[in-house]
């Protein structure tokens, strides 16, 4: 019975018609990586998408395989930091944060500070760093906002920082000033009964 299930699961990757866009040699190597990742409990879909991105962009086979292997490794690192209960979107966002320069310990701190899902918080952290905000500053800001800020607040914060940067503000200063001045509403603020004055915005 178990053998039957394992065989069926293996066939899923082999029979995935999307991978037929790869040349046979590359496809064989990619399927091997995907199968190994799946056996390790990692999500396979990001790996398949990375391979499809490569073939659509006309990349050579070895480059596609290297990209898929690197992503599998990073997904494993992200899961080690975020825990075995992390979802596929969280792991993908975790990989983005890691590649932006955040250390695994930052991901672990974020997991402890914020209730899941962590996808948006991790993505905002990655986006802030790729926008030029120093990784230490971005990590500190996101960790400070993590316990109470809503996903939409984090997105708005990132957009505000990126607007300031596009207008010429230094990235680090833009993030720090916005962190001090932006009134990120906490989840408890949304529960203020009608007619009562809103509580002051939460500050990190």
């Amino acid at each position: 019975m178990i053998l039957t299930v394992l065989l069926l699961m293996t066939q899923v990757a082999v029979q995935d018609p999307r991978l037929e866009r790869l040349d046979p040699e590359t496809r064989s190597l990619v399927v091997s990586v995907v199968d190994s990742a799946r056996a390790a409990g990692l999500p396979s879909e990001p790996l398949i998408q990375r391979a499809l991105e490569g073939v659509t962009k006309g990349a050579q086979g070895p480059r596609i395989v290297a990209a898929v292997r690197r992503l599998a490794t990073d997904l494993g690192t992200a899961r080690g930091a975020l825990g075995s209960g992390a979802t596929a979107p969280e792991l993908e966002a975790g990989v983005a944060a890691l590649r932006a320069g955040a250390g695994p310990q930052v991901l672990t701190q974020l997991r402890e500070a914020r209730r899941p899902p962590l996808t948006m918080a991790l993505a905002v952290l990655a986006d802030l760093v790729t926008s030029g905000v120093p990784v230490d500053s971005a990590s500190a800001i996101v960790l400070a906002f993590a316990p109470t800020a809503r996903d939409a607040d984090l997105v708005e914060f990132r957009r505000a920082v990126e607007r300031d940067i596009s207008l010429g503000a230094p990235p680090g200063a833009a993030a720090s000033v916005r962190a001090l001045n932006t009134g990120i509403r906490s989840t408890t603020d949304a529960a203020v009964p009608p007619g009562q004055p809103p509580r002051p915005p939460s500050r990190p």
Partner: protein
Amino acid sequence: MFDRDDELVDRVVRQLRQPVSIDPALDDRVMAEIAADPAPRATSRPRFSLRPWPWLAAAAVLGAIIIARPWTRGAENSGSNAFQFVLVAPQASSVALVGDFNDWDPARSPMRTAQGVWATTVPLAPGRYRYAFLVNGVEWRADPGAPDAHDDEFGTPSSVITVGGNGS
């Protein structure tokens, strides 16, 4: 009170000690009924309940895999929200949106133009997606209104969009 209980017990004991008469033909009638039954239940039940189990389980797993189609991404599942992608490209003759949400297939999300503004709408489930615009079938462009994917490993620009749990 105790005397009354003793009397009741004595009556029960007397009743139980009376001889019981059984019809001598009872055994023959029972055996005749069993022989006349067309379905031998005693032997068929264990065979039916045990042997098909592996096949039923395998069929269930196969059916679940086929129905769930794990090779398709969650964007096609329920809980997704529609997001519009826009690129201003007045000189372009064609623009395609490709990304993690459509298997990087230029034919999956065609963009329509109105005076050089190309747009299309795609349903996205919560997650983080990489994408790019393919202009005239040869030129790759990132989305100027979205964060760049700085970890592009294929030498072309890409963007990222993150959809939160509430569709934000």
